């Protein structure tokens, strides 16, 4: 056996090193080329479309329209409102539920928690369908009540299709399990000692959780919130399925402008605006998280 070959490559000679650097670049190029060509370049084309008039001149007119025309402001408002509402409601429900599941033991808990992956992984449009099948005017609940009340004309007092609460129901159905999943995963890693320490110092169980465990779970809760918010914000399919166009969000409006009115420039401006918001939220969270870790 050649002893020199067995040694780890630490002291590579100068020409060998240069070759290695060159190889590194080729390697990186191979990895990055598809992303440059099929993500970065298209996104540049999108931005370009949004700032160039049909005659080829530079303009910010489409962005001005975005902020001047009430219709688009409405869509922005719709988007942020439904995202914020979903996030708030699913955190308000999901966080206490996670803490409850963390503290309590009851038969079947483990299995149920593990099975939460089913709604969590179900594509949102299939969830939307299931909810329509369950709660729609022709859904399971309606049929069951009709038979129960022996009233074939009976109609549910609420509508799932084409209503705001219908959309919200689907989003919350999807988001709540996500919140429980992420928060529970973090809680599972928190040793019971922290709570015990707080209790030995005189805190009641609830105070211990509120003052000690909850602050430790803040990153996971914030992370879950950001994910829920951005998932709802970019949604197209649930809203177009459930709500028609009355509650259209920015993503729906992008599609609408493009396929409906064939106004590429406005669609592009809307798209750039929407992705700027999602990126700001995502990277904002990432930097906050890193900053928090360091501070």
């Amino acid at each position, binding site marked *: 056996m050649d002893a020199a070959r067995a040694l780890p490559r630490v002291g590579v000679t100068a020409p060998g090193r240069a070759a290695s650097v060159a190889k590194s670049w080729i390697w990186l190029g191979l990895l990055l080329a598809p992303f440059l060509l099929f993500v970065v370049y298209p996104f540049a084309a999108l931005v370009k479309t949004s700032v160039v008039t049909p005659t080829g001149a530079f303009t910010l007119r489409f962005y001005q329209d975005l902020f001047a025309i009430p219709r688009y402001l409405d869509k922005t408002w719709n988007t942020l409102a439904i995202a914020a509402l979903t996030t708030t409601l699913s955190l308000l429900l999901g966080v206490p539920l996670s803490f409850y599941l963390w503290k309590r033991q009851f038969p079947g808990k483990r299995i149920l928690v593990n099975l939460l992956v089913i709604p969590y992984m179900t594509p949102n449009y299939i969830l939307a369908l299931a909810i329509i099948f369950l709660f729609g005017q022709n859904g399971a609940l309606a049929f069951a009540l009709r038979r129960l009340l022996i009233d074939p004309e009976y109609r549910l007092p609420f509508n799932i299709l084409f209503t705001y609460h219908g959309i919200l129901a689907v989003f919350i159905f999807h988001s709540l399990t996500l919140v429980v999943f992420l928060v529970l995963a973090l809680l599972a890693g928190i040793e019971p000692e922290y709570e*015990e*320490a707080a209790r*030995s*110092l005189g805190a009641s169980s609830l105070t211990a959780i509120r003052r*000690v465990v909850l602050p430790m779970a803040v990153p996971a809760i914030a992370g879950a919130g950001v994910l829920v918010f951005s998932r709802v914000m970019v949604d197209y399919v649930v809203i177009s399925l459930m709500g028609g166009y009355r509650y259209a969000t920015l993503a729906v409006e992008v599609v609408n402008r493009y396929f409906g009115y064939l106004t590429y420039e406005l669609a592009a401006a809307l798209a750039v605006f929407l992705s700027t918001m999602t990126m700001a939220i995502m990277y904002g969270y990432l930097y906050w998280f890193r900053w928090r870790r360091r501070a």
Partner: protein
Amino acid sequence: MERYLEVRGLWKSFGPVLALHDVSFAVERNEFFTLLGPSGCGKTTLLRCVAGFEQADAGEIAVEGHDMRFDPPEKRDVGFVFQRYALFPTMTAYRNVAFGLEMRGLHGAELDRRVQEALDLVRLRGLEHRRPRELSGGQQQRVAVARALVIRPRLLLMDEPLSNLDAKLRQEMRTEIRRIQKETGITTLYVTHDQEEAFSLSDRILVMDAGRVQQIGTHAELYFQPANGFVADFIGQANRLPGEVVAAQVEETTVRVLGETLRLPRRPGLAPGQRVFVSVRPEHVRLAVCPGDSCLKGRVRQRQFLGPFLRYFVDIGGAEVVADISGITLDGLASLPQEGDNVTVGFSPHDCTLLEA
């Protein structure tokens, strides 16, 4: 003798595992009391029962005559130092220490004064605004102690608090903990598996094994008068020589060990014909000279030079005796028995303990 903490007839099982088996003991006011035993012996469970983190199945735990077995942990007024400290990671050292006082409704200048006092006691001034992960292991340890002490608890409970520190720091913190305990005079219940730690810290020690109390006593009592084979083995090193009682007289008990007859101080409750162990510490074993009746013949199998003493492993008719010979000099080494030499093994009857087999 004042019984400050009293534990009576404590039982606790986890499913089929019996963790505490009828445990009883009493701790005096201002005493440093250590629970010593191998891992899994139930000592931590016992401590957690006192703290209220576990509920005992039966028995009584009373401080100053008040049974607190059904009090939740927050009502028991005990300070607990955890093995991994369990400092609240989202709070600074200062806020960690202040937490227990806040729970007692203290605030403002009084709270600040008490916190500073506690930080002074553990010598942590100047680091109070750091978060736990910005502190070294030893500093985290000090915060944990300050946090437990600042509430002036009725009892300080410590669960292997030094096991996460490196050897040198452990020595240092050992001295520190003893100093702090002396200064505050707080009654302390301390859990460890480290005999040296237990000896250097405690006033009295409770040795536990398999959920049962094996012996309670001072270090000297445990070392020189082990109550049974487990204690003899666990505390220090001990030779255990199998034998049989020949006669039980008023003054002494005659035992036959490895073909030789030994006359040992009397131990009550032994009848002729009973199988016993004779326990003797390596440092009490002498070689070459045979002072009295208690001597045995053997052959040196191995000799180890360990600095302060020489350790001999001597074969005696199938059994092995370990002997530590101290007070050696460079010149004296050659004249001491070598490997393969035939030697006489002797020890004073007063250094022997008779144990039931």
